[in-house]
């Protein structure tokens, strides 16, 4: 019989008050987090697959990656915005995913608190750093060997 078991649809959308685990005070955060995972996932498919294709498949693939390659990409606002969106969405999506996993496995309140504190601190550092790198990037730093720089830099 196991193979043909039918799963019945839940009969009621109403949750009896004794089973409602939290008051209205927590708001809809968990619902937004759930929705965010799905929406960001859809966008990340395009962003990450595009990133991997351009950096690994086109031309010489990984061999082409060096300072000049990055400078060439970030000279174009298109790739700046692309990388910025990918940075924020992937970090927030990944952080929320890891938060769920911590909630699942860390049973002690103290352990859960500290793991999440470390997680959020790491996320904040990486998002701020990654954003600064994109916007403060200098493709033609002074005193750098000219052969490492992109071709559009003025001759020293």
């Amino acid at each position, binding site marked *: 019989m*196991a193979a043909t*078991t039918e*799963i019945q649809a839940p009969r009621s959308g109403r949750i009896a008050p004794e089973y409602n685990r939290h008051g209205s005070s927590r708001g809809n955060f968990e619902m937004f987090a759930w929705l965010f995972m*799905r929406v960001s*996932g*859809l966008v*990340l*498919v395009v962003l*990450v*697959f595009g990133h*991997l294709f351009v950096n*690994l*498949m086109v031309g*010489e*693939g*990984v*061999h082409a*990656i*060096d*300072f*000049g390659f*990055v*400078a060439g990409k970030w000279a174009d606002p298109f790739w700046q915005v692309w990388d910025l969106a990918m*940075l924020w969405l*992937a*970090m927030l999506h*990944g*952080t929320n*995913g*890891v938060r769920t*996993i911590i909630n699942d496995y860390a049973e002690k309140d103290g352990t859960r608190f500290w793991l999440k504190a470390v997680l959020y601190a*790491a996320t904040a550092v*990486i998002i701020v*750093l*990654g954003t*600064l*790198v994109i916007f*403060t*990037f*200098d493709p033609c*730093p002074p005193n*750098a*060997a000219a052969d*490492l*720089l992109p071709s559009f830099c003025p001759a020293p």
Partner: protein
Amino acid sequence: MSKTPAGTLYRGREGMWSWVGHRVTGVAIFFFLLVHVLDTALVRVSPEAYNVVINTYKNPIMALLEAGLVAAIVFHAFNGLRVILVDFWKKGPKYQAKLLWGVIGLWVVVMVPFLIRHLTLAFTGGH
């Protein structure tokens, strides 16, 4: 008596294994991303610093690790789309197991050409 029931609808079947795979790949990609943003940040230190570190990545072992990373993200992405279909498409829950076979099929279709191209580039071309 054992507390774990044998032969439930979920345990040990497609639904459980796809969830395990989704979780493991998600965490792996997350830790990769932390390191990845740090190494990319070397472009702000100096062109030399960035190139030195990136060049140490250009070897056969790293090429295999990159292939593993891409395998993980392609699975996570396609299975994520499956999860979205299960949640939002009326027939999604009914077809969740078949959808997993679709995910695996698409994964093979993407990974085979990717591996051919990536490993050819990594093991033959370049400097």
